[in-house]
């Protein structure tokens, strides 16, 4: 059987080429994801090993639940270490050297006031370290010049020096949480061997300067320890750890490197899951194409299979043969896909390296799990998709061999409609349950429901196509005469095939429409919120590093002429009943001057109590109850005095007086400014900008419009990323349209020959195929848009408590998708139409199906 299958593939390689490619693309995405993250993982593991190479033991603060913070962001959680910790480490047996080290997040500013690196904004951080002079602890070696000695001397990493053209002797300004400090570049240094900073800007300065940049204090961020020659680092780490107070721990450098690599691995896994989800969408679309291709091939070979059955081949053997063919294609596609994935991942890594931020990628190899997944997925998807057509083939009776292809009796669509209706209903039901029932893991229900819905609609689409094709026949016939009528006929002739083809496109477009609906709604909700709720004239925000709740900032901002009110928005994490919850901290007396919160009652009436959001209410809080918030160093029991209308902005709301009793760092992320009535806001803005430029370089001044623009930018970026990830699925769907048309051109060879014989020109044959393609594509796109918008609306309705009250239908984007579907149809028809038009009239008529 396998030999027969191989012969069949060999006999007609072209029709299977596109099929294999459809699977290969999906497999390629999966393999690329694995290869990409594997390379990044290995690169970072090596990098972390390098960083902690010279450090035997590390002493660092931890939060009460042992969280050490995000290793990639540069800021650590917990409190600074005091000198006693350094002493403890130093006095432990086996310790040769222990030194504290301090770091600060800041900005590097040119003398003209232009920020070179850091400050507020996005991107990698600018980090200041004190220079210890111990190479292993600094992880850096001077390349040019010398180490910093005075407080106004700094050393920058060589990458930064090159990027900004800094050389020894240049003047710059170091910016910290509350001040700017003119400094001289006295040297450049390489961090580790390759100055592989991941785009971060590294600056070394004196200890005092770094502490100033942090906003004061005399603690340490971390203590580095070197053990005596021959001492066991692990044993020393345990010994130090035993003597440390709560909230501080000691561990070996190797263990720390491992920990960071593992934590990065976790983060990469999330990326993996995200991209793999799109790879599976692509494969799902691919499965449609394969099923459709096999269905067509089986139909075309009906006589052949009938003949086989007539000469004694068993139905089961026919089935095995078709499946063997699928297996063969699956194998080829998997190999192709894995190679494609390698090329794709290698290309992206190469591009990243060329652009800069790709330094940490290890040379990409094809890891075993990429191979295993590639083959497993490629083969399973192909064979499973061919299963139904194979079963269908096994049921072909020997009688079919005698029947002419044109006179084959058509099966009705009834069964298909019943199954399709049931699936669609079940899918819609499951989706609704997932969205509204408030179950655990709702996305499982929504996902499964969406898949069923798609399958159901695909099946029903065949029925939908029959009246549609008839309705369009007249229209198409009026516009394109015979070509239009024949195109409509062809679509209607094989409603199953046309529906399946259109459905492949439907899935991709559905996800696009869903994303567009959600993102556009988020946009308009954000616009409403910022435009309607923000009565503040300006906002001073910190995006890099949350500012401290320093009263001096408020006083300085308030001292700017024509500033009437400065009101802060801040956040912290506290525990309620042992669960870590987000708490929003506001200047409640003035908060409503800047932002129209729709609380009940107004924030001004909080009365030293706490307001609760719907999610806190769900957790059991009620007006009149008391809630106990537990912080790092204190707790408060507060009466619930009001309700906040939406979720997502924090679960609990308190004023600064109560928040300060928790002993947890309060991160102020926004100072809202209300100008005096009649004041020129542009003037106020200019004054504020001057103030922050010199005194608070990590803050920026924004208007509500700036914020809206930024929010829109982020949303657009998200839409772009998702669209890019979906493009794989869309390309596969287009291949599907091309493939179906190609197969049907083969099937209709004699017919096309006849058309040409009675006078149809090549051009009109081409046009017929093109119309067919465009109609199928638009049909799929419109179905996808309807489903996608419906799912989007359902999703938004389910998120009502987060403030999504109105749905914005993205008409413009939907129009664009429809136009793109028309173009896709034209492109997909290119090859099949060419093939059809090129057919030689006489050969075509003599063609034996």
């Amino acid at each position, binding site marked *: 059987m396998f030999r027969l299958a191989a012969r069949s593939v060999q006999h007609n390689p072209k029709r299977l080429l596109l099929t294999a490619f459809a699977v290969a693309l999906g497999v390629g995405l999966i393999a690329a994801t694995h290869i990409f993250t594997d390379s990044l993982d290995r690169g970072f593991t090596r990098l972390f090993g390098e960083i902690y190479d010279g450090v035997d033991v590390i002493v660092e603060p931890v939060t009460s639940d042992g969280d050490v913070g995000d290793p990639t962001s540069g800021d650590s959680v917990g409190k600074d270490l005091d000198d006693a910790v350094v002493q403890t480490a130093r006095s432990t047996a086996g310790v040769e050297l222990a030194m504290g080290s301090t770091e600060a997040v800041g900005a590097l500013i040119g003398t003209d006031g232009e920020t070179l690196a850091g400050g507020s904004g996005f991107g990698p951080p600018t980090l200041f370290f004190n220079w210890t002079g111990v190479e292993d602890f600094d992880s850096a070696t001077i390349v040019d010049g010398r180490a910093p000695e005075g407080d106004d001397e700094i050393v920058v990493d060589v990458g930064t020096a090159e990027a900004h053209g800094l050389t020894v002797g240049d003047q710059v300004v170091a910016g910290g949480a509350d001040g700017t400090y003119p400094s001289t570049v006295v040297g450049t240094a390489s961090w580790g061997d390759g100055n592989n900073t991941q785009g971060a800007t590294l600056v070394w300065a004196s200890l005092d300067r770094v502490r100033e940049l942090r906003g004061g204090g005399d603690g340490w961020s971390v203590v580095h320890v070197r053990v005596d020659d021959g001492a066991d680092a692990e044993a020393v780490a345990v010994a130090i750890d035993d003597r440390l107070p709560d909230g501080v721990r000691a561990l070996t450098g190797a263990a720390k490197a491992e920990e960071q690599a593992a934590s990065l691995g976790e983060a990469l896994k999330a990326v993996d899951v995200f991209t793999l989800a799109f790879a599976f969408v692509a494969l799902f679309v691919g499965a449609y194409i394969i099923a459709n291709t096999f269905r067509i091939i089986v139909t075309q070979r009906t006589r052949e299979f009938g003949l086989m059955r007539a000469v004694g081949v068993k139905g089961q053997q026919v089935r095995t043969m078709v499946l063997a063919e699928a297996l063969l294609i699956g194998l080829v596609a998997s190999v192709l896909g894995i190679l494609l994935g390698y090329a794709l991942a290698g290309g992206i890594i190469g591009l990243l390296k060329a652009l800069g931020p790709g330094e940490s990628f290890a040379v990409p190899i094809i890891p075993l799990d990429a191979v295993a997944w590639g083959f497993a997925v490629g083969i399973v998807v192909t064979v499973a998709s061919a299963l139904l057509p194979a079963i269908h083939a096994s049921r072909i009776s020997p009688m079919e061999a005698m029947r002419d292809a*044109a006179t084959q009796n058509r099966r009705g669509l009834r069964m298909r409609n019943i199954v399709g209706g049931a699936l669609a209903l079940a899918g819609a039901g499951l989706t609704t349950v997932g969205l509204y029932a408030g179950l655990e893991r709702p996305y499982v229900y929504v996902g499964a429901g969406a898949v069923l819905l798609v399958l159901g609609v695909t099946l029903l689409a065949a029925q939908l196509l029959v009246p549609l094709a008839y309705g369009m026949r007249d229209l198409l016939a009026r516009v394109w005469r015979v070509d239009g009528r024949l195109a409509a006929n062809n679509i209607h002739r094989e409603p199953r095939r046309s529906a399946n083809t259109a459905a492949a496109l439907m899935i991709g477009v559905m996800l696009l429409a869903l994303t567009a609906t959600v993102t556009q709604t988020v946009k308009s909700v954000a616009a409403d919120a910022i435009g309607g709720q923000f009565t503040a004239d300006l906002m001073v925000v910190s995006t890099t590093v949350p500012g401290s709740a320093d009263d001096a900032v408020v006083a300085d901002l308030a001292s700017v002429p024509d500033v009437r009110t400065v009101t802060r928005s801040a956040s912290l994490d506290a525990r309620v009943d042992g669960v870590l919850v987000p708490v929003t901290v506001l200047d409640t007396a003035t908060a409503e001057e800047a932002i129209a919160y729709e609380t009940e009652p107004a924030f001004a009436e909080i009365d030293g109590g706490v307001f609760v959001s719907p999610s806190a209410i769900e957790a059991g809080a009620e007006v009149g109850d008391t809630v106990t918030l537990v912080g790092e160093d204190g707790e408060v029991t507060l009466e619930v005095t009001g309700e906040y209308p939406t979720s997502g902005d924090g679960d609990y709301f308190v004023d600064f007086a109560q928040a300060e009793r928790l002993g947890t760092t309060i991160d102020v992320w926004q100072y809202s400014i209300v100008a005096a009535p009649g004041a020129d806001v542009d003037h106020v803005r200019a004054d504020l900008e001057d103030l922050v430029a010199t005194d608070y370089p990590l803050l920026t001044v924004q208007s509500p419009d700036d914020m809206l623009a930024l929010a829109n930018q982020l949303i657009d970026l998200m839409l772009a990323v998702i669209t890019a990830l979906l493009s794989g699925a869309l390309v596969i769907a287009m291949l599907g349209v091309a493939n179906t048309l190609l197969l049907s051109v083969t099937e209709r060879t004699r017919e096309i020959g006849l058309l040409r014989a*009675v*006078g*149809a020109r090549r051009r009109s044959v081409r046009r017929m195929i093109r119309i067919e393609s465009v109609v199928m594509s638009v049909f799929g796109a419109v179905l996808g848009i309807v489903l996608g918008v419906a799912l989007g609306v359902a999703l938004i309705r389910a998120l009502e408590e987060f403030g999504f009250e109105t749905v914005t239908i993205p008409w413009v984007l939907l129009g664009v998708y429809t136009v793109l579907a028309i173009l896709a149809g034209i492109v997909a028809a290119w090859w099949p139409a060419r093939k059809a038009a090129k057919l030689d009239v006489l050969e075509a008529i003599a063609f034996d199906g």
Partner: protein
Amino acid sequence: MTTTLTETPRTSVAVAASMRGGAKTYGDGDAAVRALDGVDVDIAIAEFTAIMGPSGSGKSTLLHTLAGLDRLTAGDSWIGETRITGLSEDKITQVRRDKIGFVFQAFNLIPSLTARENITLPLDIAGRDIDPDWFGEVIAILGLADRLSHLPAELSGGQQQRVAVARALVARPELIFADEPSGNLDSRSGGELLGFMRRAVEEFGQTIAMVTHDPTAASYADRVLFLADGRIVDEMREPTAERVLDRMKQMGH
């Protein structure tokens, strides 16, 4: 090969199609087959011409090249006054569309179109109007009136061939080519079909050229051309089935 050198002058009137020195070679080198080897022929207007000859003698090739479905390797051919050798593919298609009807031995109809749509297909393609009287007359004579809304799969083989003939006639082409139109039919259906073609020639002045193997079928024609090895070796006017059979026996058929 002397035949190709002596040019028979083309009679410019009353000729629907003609060929001079027509040659068609398939393949090259040792494997080359000369399907037509210097053919001079005129198809007279309003005449029913039958083309006969042993299998492989080049009958279909002659028909195809005359109709512009295939190109000659050498020589020229005309449809009416238009020399089609040398025309572009699109131009030939246009000539075919406007002046020629074709009936194949099998597979004449588009399966997805009804009988009526198949019949009007050439007119639809050309964007020409249908003459309802003529359409009705053709349909009535061919006995297809109650079959017009059927798909080809729902028609018998004989009915399918009649639809194909109707398609060829309704467009009122100057010339109809038919390649063994009755080959698939039993003698009664075949007889009816040929009888109708005869009537079309006599009553409407239709020009028809038909390939056949069947001496009885040939007897419906005004003239029979005999082909052997890609050359016209004989011709017979007012044929009867017996005379044709005799002639074929002479040719060693």
